[in-house]
C-alpha cells in the first residue's frame, strides 16, 4: 500500500516520516519518534495505557492512525514535565501517593489526569473515579491514584 508523509509536532518538536496508513499514532510515536513513554497495552482502546493529548484533548493513540494527525500537535508523557525535568504536579502527586507500582499504565494515567484536571480543577471523588474509568491499572487497586488526583488538584488550587 502507498506510504504517506506525516508531519506532527510532538512535545513542541517537529517529526516527519513516511508511513503506511495503517500505522497507529502510538506506533508512530514509539517507532518513528523514539518516544517509548507511550505504552501499548490492549491495542484496541480498552486499557488507556496509550493515552496522549492531541491538540490538547486526551485520546487513545492506538485508535488513531498517524496519517490522521498530519499537521496536528501531540503531547506525550515525555512532554508533561518541565524541560528541566521538574515533575508536573500530577507526576509529583503520583509519586508521593504511591499511584504506581509496575508503571506500565502510568503514562496513560498521567496524560488522562492532566486533561481531567485542566477541564475540572476540583473534581469530586466520584468525578475522579468516573474520569479514570477508561484507564486500567493492574497493580495499585486505584486508591493511590485517586489520592494522587486529589493531591494534584489541591497543589494546583
Amino acid at each position, binding site marked *: 500500500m502507498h506510504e504517506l508523509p506525516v508531519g506532527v509536532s510532538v512535545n513542541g518538536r517537529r517529526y516527519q516520516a513516511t508511513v503506511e496508513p495503517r500505522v*497507529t499514532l502510538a506506533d508512530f510515536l514509539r517507532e518513528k519518534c523514539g518516544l517509548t513513554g507511550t505504552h501499548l497495552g490492549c491495542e484496541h482502546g480498552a486499557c488507556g495505557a496509550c493515552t496522549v493529548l492531541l491538540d490538547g484533548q486526551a485520546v487513545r493513540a492506538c485508535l488513531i492512525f498517524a496519517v490522521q494527525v498530519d499537521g496536528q500537535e501531540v503531547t506525550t508523557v515525555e512532554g508533561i514535565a518541565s524541560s528541566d525535568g521538574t515533575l508536573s504536579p500530577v507526576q509529583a502527586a503520583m509519586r508521593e501517593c504511591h499511584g504506581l507500582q509496575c508503571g506500565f499504565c502510568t503514562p496513560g494515567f498521567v496524560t488522562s489526569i492532566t486533561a481531567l484536571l485542566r477541564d475540572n480543577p476540583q473534581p469530586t471523588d466520584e468525578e475522579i473515579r468516573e474520569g479514570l474509568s477508561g484507564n486500567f491499572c493492574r497493580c495499585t487497586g486505584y486508591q493511590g491514584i485517586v489520592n494522587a488526583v486529589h493531591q494534584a488538584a489541591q497543589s494546583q488550587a
Partner: protein
Amino acid sequence: MKAASFAYHRPDTVADAVGLLAEYGDEAKILAGGQSLVPMLAMRLTYFENLVDISRVDELKNIELRDDDHGPQVWIGAATPHALVGMDDEVAESVPLLTLSTPHIGHFQIRTRGTLGGAIAHADPAAEYAAVALALDARIEAASPRGRRQIPAAEFFTGLWETSLQADELLTAVAFPVWSGRCGFAVREFARRHGDFAIAGATVAVELDADDRVARCSIGLLGLGSTPKRGTQAEDAITGRTVTDISAEELGRLAMSGLEDVPADNQGSASYRTRVGATMVARAWTEAITEALNA
C-alpha cells in the same frame, strides 16, 4: 492487533467524500472518530480496501437549530464529536436527552474522538445516541451521488450493526425534534463499570398537560435487542393518564413486553437484562416526571 493495509483518503468536503464512496462502493468505509471501527480493524474482525476519513470535513461539524415542516429541530453534523455534543448549550436546552446520555458513552478519552454520526451509523444496540434518535423520531440525513435524503429513525436501524444506509451513502447529519412545554427527561443505564456497554438502559422523555396528564411519552431502550428499541406498549398505555396514577414499576414491566430478541451473553441472560431494563425505565420515568411536574 494491527490493522491490515488499506488506502487512506481524507476529503475536505461532503462532495469529495461522496465521490470517493461512489468510486469504491463496498470496498470503502467511512472513518469518522474511529472509536468502534479501528478496534474492529485492529482485531481483523472487518477489512476495507479504502478508508475515507471525514474527521476534517468542517461542514459536518455544526450544531444548529432549524425550523421547518417537521417543527423545531436541532441538526447535528455527523462528524461532531460526542464531547462537543455533550457540552453544547443549544443541545442542553433543546434536546436534553443527548446531553444526559453523553457521559454514559465510553470514557472521556473516547468522547473526544467518537462522533455522533459514527455512533448512529455503527448502530450498536447499546449505543446511547442511537436509542435517543429512535426515541425522539429523529431523521437521519444521507448524501449520495443521487442527492440527499432523510430517513426516519424508525426505518434506519435494521439489524445488529445494520442500517438502511446504502454503500454509497454518507450519513451527514441527524435532526432531533425539540420538545417544549412541561417536559422532563432522564437517562438511566446499568453497566458493571462506568463507560462499559450497558447491560440495559432507558431514556425517557415526557410532556405533561396543565392537568398533569401525559400529553406524550417516549421511551428509548438500549442493550435490549439487536437494534435500539422503543417501549411502545408502555408509551401507548400511559398517554392521557394522570401521572400520579401511573406506577413506575408497572411502566417498566410494560416497556419490556414487546421485546423479542433480548441478548443473552456472559454479561447476563435475557431475563436478567429484561429485569434490569424494567428497573432502568422505572427509575428514568420517576426522574423525568419529577422534572416535568416542577417545570
